[in-house]
């Protein structure tokens, strides 16, 4: 058992979790002093093992990246958010085939660079991971949004000039198999 001195502080742990969350790992296990931290983006980690009170809630940051078809390459995917993708039976008639591109922030989604201009992308267009697919306006600041995945746009989940929340699906991209 490590001594008290090697035990990380709570803010150390939070920093670690934040950093790991920002990296592309699916599953991570780290032992750090007498504390072990395990994170998973997939299913919840089993309850046993050496986890103590501090490590448990770390599973809260697990972000189920529900990708109906092939998962996008982790390295080029923007951080998937904790919003699980819709089941595809939303009833709205939207074709949710593919990988959902979530809104990186709360704001108003615009499909084109300015009013009247042609949209950045349309259904059926091919996009690269770094292709701009729209803009989120937050308090008059325009923030371009990238696809985060290469593939073909299958459909839009939100209309032009629609208010969106953080993590809300903007559109769906059928990824390419590489």
């Amino acid at each position, binding site marked *: 058992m490590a001594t008290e001195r090697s035990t990380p502080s*709570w803010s150390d742990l939070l920093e670690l979790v934040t950093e790991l969350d920002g990296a592309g790992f699916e599953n991570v296990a780290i032992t750090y002093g007498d504390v072990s931290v395990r994170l998973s983006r997939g299913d919840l980690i089993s309850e046993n093992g050496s986890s103590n009170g501090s490590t*448990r809630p770390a599973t809260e940051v697990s972000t189920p990246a529900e990708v109906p078809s092939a998962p996008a390459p982790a390295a080029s995917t923007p951080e998937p958010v904790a919003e699980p993708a819709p089941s595809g039976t939303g009833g709205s008639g939207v074709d949710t085939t593919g990988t959902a591109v979530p809104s990186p922030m709360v704001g108003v989604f615009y499909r084109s660079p300015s009013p009247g201009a042609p949209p950045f992308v349309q259904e059926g267009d091919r996009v690269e991971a770094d292709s701009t697919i729209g803009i989120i306006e937050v*308090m008059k600041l325009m923030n371009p949004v990238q696809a985060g995945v290469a593939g073909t746009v299958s459909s839009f989940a939100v209309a032009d000039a629609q208010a969106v929340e953080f993590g809300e699906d903007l559109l769906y991209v059928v990824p390419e198999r590489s």
Partner: protein
Amino acid sequence: MSDPATVPTVLVANRGEIAVRVIEAAHRIGARAVLAVSTADRDSVGAHLADETIVIGPAQASQSYLRPEFIAQAALQSGADVVHPGYGFLSEQPELTEILEAEGVAFAGPRAETLRAVGDKSSARKVAIAAGVPVAAAAPVVDPHDAEHLRGLGESVGYPLLVKAVYGGGGRGIRLAPDYETLVQLAPQAAAEAIAAFGNGELYVERYYGAARHVEVQVFGDGDGGVLIFGDRDCSVQRRHQKLIEECPAPGLSEQRRRVLHDASRALVRELRYRGAGTIEFMVDTQSEDVIFLEVNARIQVEHPVTEEAFGVDLVAAQLRLALGLDPQLPEVPAVPPATAIEVRVNAEDPDRDFRPAPGRITTVSWPRGPGIRVDTHLRDEYSFPPFYDSLMAKLIVRAHDRAAAVGALESAVRRTRIDGVVTTLPLHEHVLNHPDFRAGGVPTTWFGPLWEEHSRATAEMRKADR
């Protein structure tokens, strides 16, 4: 109030128990409550109580609750008339107030200029002096090597005193000088250290109070210089400046001292033309008659319920009403309330392991019932208490006809509280509420730390012996 055009909308820009409190106050005044949440709080009690939620960002507060532009955006998207910031997070950030003002959305708090004026210690001190509020005797050190100059400083400020670096902070660069000899010795060292640590050797000396109580006054300003005072609170049971137990009224204050505190607070609120709920914090020395201004908390505070219970008022509803341009519906009250209310903060921390945060999955929660019991909480059965935020789980508040009855009723209420699945600070409260010093009332802020260290040591030894 069924016509949507006349129903105001409140955006609640906070989480945890205070989000629940503000949502209830919004509903109390017939308003719609929209809660801005991070992804970690989408399934919270507040989220279920609110009429609508808007996800503003990920779990990390730095990318959600601490971003004024996301809060303002959520306010616009929800059609909010007023934003209530709770405490912590953006509650005292003038940036949020200014963005909202530019968009025509009200802020349930003071004006941006007030937040700036009281936002840092030195400007707050200036405002206090201008209002005639007693502040700690202090003086700049012109030459740390000049013994005669130091003698004069010591005589004017009084011993014991603290030598502080002007550019220091967070408790660093502070030395205690109990007498002149120590001061002469310390000052040159402190200056050299300040240069090394902060790149500037400027020092000042300030009177030190080693056994003072923390007493604060609840104010409510109309924004035009009008002031209502809702008594005082004692928050002296603290650990490392974190309040653990609060009560209203502050016990054992002489009529004269109470008048000094209330009059000073009234003068400060007038000077600031303060708008809404606020708290003026003081040190009340137990070894002299000195009363010293500490700071203005320009927000609703965690411990506001003891004042609400003791006087029978709703301060949060009043904040919302005032911000909406309505009568806050608050009464004039006497300096001393007709009842005593005491609050314990139940935190997700392990008091036997240096108060290490102890978040985790709560299996079941059960609160005591009875006259005068109030629980402000966002806990529920099966709640995974998240690790990302403040460790406050609940505030258990008890009101009774006098202090002894309130202490007894609260002690019983603590024993009847069950929070299963996680470690909490409940055992600490049982210990304090049973302690003769606390029962006598008026302990200083330096009381709890050593007491609990001694208790923890004794507990650890008993455990060892049991093995």
